[in-house]
């Protein structure tokens, strides 16, 4: 038999002590599982998402292979044109109500720089009627590009998604 002198609560005191201990733990769990609130987005703003995936023009044009060149190519890869893989970066400018809100350039993806350029950018804007203009340059510094314009009506907390399907403008807006 050994003798230990640690205090051990007995009877109702023991259960009262546990009740206090568990209550404190439950309060911590209950409170921090959903509080304090986090203000994720201002109530008086709308959100514009500019996001698309677009391949720039090839840096060098495709050339026809000569008959001698074709002879040295395995049958499985024998195509009449030779196309260098590298593409131009894509440059984008976005204006809202004639004010430039974004200007950026993205390199082609992939180790050979032959993949599409990827854009994902978000902007907070005031709600209301907006005219947007999108300018895309996909043919290098001296090359061509295209433009789109549209008019949108945004309410607070609306999300406007600006996307491109190939070169056509796709706008994602809340259904009213």
């Amino acid at each position, binding site marked *: 038999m050994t003798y230990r002198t640690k205090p051990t609560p007995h009877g109702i005191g023991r259960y009262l002590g546990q009740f206090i201990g*568990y209550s404190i*733990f439950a309060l911590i*769990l209950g409170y921090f599982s959903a509080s304090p609130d986090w203000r*994720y987005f201002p109530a008086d703003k709308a959100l514009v998402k500019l996001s698309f995936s677009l391949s720039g023009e090839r840096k060098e044009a495709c050339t026809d292979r000569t008959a001698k060149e074709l002879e040295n190519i395995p049958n499985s890869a024998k195509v009449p044109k030779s196309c260098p893989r590298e593409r131009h970066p894509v440059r984008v400018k976005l204006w809202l109500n004639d004010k430039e809100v974004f200007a950026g350039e993205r390199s082609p993806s992939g180790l050979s720089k032959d993949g599409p350029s990827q854009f994902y950018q978000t902007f907070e804007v005031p709600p209301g009627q907006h005219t947007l203009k999108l300018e895309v340059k996909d043919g290098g510094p001296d090359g061509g590009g295209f433009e789109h314009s549209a008019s949108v009506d945004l309410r607070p907390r609306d999300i406007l998604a600006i*996307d491109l399907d190939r070169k056509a403008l796709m706008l994602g807006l809340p259904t009213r």
Partner: protein
Amino acid sequence: MVLGYIQRPMEWAFEKAELGFDVLFGRAWNPLFYLGALCYFNFWIVAASGIYLYIVFETSVLGAYNSIEAITQEQWYFGGIMRSLHRYASDALLLTTMIHLLREFALDRYRGVRWFSWVVGVPMLWLLIICGINGYWLVWDELAQMIAVWTAEFLDWFPIFGEPIARNFLTKGSLGDRFFSLLIFLHIALPLILLLLMWIHLQRMNRARINPPMGLAIGTFLMLLVLSLIYPAVSHPQADLSHVPEVIHLDWFYLFVYPMIDLWSAGPVWALIYGVTGLLIIMPWLPREKYDAPAVVNPDQCNGCERCFDDCPYGAVIMQLREDDSPYEKIAVVNADACAACGICVGSCPTHTPLRRGDHITTGIDLPDLSLHQLRGQCVATVAGLPDDMPKVILFGCARAVQVEAMNIPGVATVQLPCTGMVPPSLLDFMLRRGGADGVFLTGCGDGECFHRLGGRWVEERLDGTRETYLRTKFSKKRIRLDWASSADGDRLKEDIIAFRDSLPDLPDETDLVETNGVDET
């Protein structure tokens, strides 16, 4: 060392908290001694409630939210409670895990042989958080929408994905039903991987406690149940990718990282995550205290009884078949890399029982830096140095609790050990019969908070006669006192030792037992 400045106040705080929980819960149910077991217990509640939720969950864009809402509102008395239990037990699991981690750090239980459990625990922590975040996606409410977009933007900070992941959440039509099949698959697979890691986490811990005492388990479950009834878990409005949520009721246990991304942007948060992870992983190898030499087996004395194998808290002793001419079949072998030199194996070894006065003690397993022979000599010498005009007490303490060598109590000789579990009952026997002590007082960090995990438990069981090696003394057991005390408990312990010393003259004279018990001569 900088870590020491952080550890010491934390250690003090934990010891004070332990004393507080002793008062509230009693020592046997003190939750701070069962943090790992409570993690397991909460995991099982999460798993059981999760199975039910999986049965009713619909894996589609519309069905996900509606199925969860249906059980929350229409089946609040069961489905709603299961959902709330799932959430609160998950929160309790993470909170308990964090306290467990901090306590092991504060008490310096992450270095040396414990590096394995510590390092395995680091990915477990992140995996647990990922499981929680993954779970919140499934509800597909505004909170899930926010998490989805934020997570995608956070991952897109590394330009390694072909197309930004965030484009999957651009418009309502971006998301397909298969996305929820993927989420539910992850929400089953990731916890199973976590469970596997929980098993690996304990591989170098013998007799790890994975179940809390029944009373603590019932109390914890009732607490979660009552919380689920009073404050049930509910959803935000349904996710709508054409509108931004304004205010989010965040679960700060699992989702604390998102406000950080919002405030600091993705780059610094990634740096913080990698920094914290790297620091946690290298911590066991940062400049450390010196560990004593590992235990060694004396083949001539070892009889293969397996008691040291059974008692070692770290699985550092293994039994092998003998290949010499010994009549015994097996021999203990020490894995030096896993040995913490706690000496518990010395306390369990029966080969030196009973202790004699003159012989050189050679025991089956011993510590090179503090052999049992040296220990006996130290005990006899310190007691011999005590004055004769008062009762003589020998006080055994462990290096991880109250520093008994600094106590300086008249009439009390002190011996500090790596762990109180190193004391063989035969040494107590010897000190009362032959060593000149009138009483023996044992203290240490003890069961539950024992630095070497099992030392306190084995001491109690050996003295109670329920575990070999047994205490065989015929002296009154009132001459032996066991009193666990943490570093914060020093003043009370000192009072108890003085009271014990002063009680000894009131005990009947037992000197004749020295001559008649015969134990010494057998």
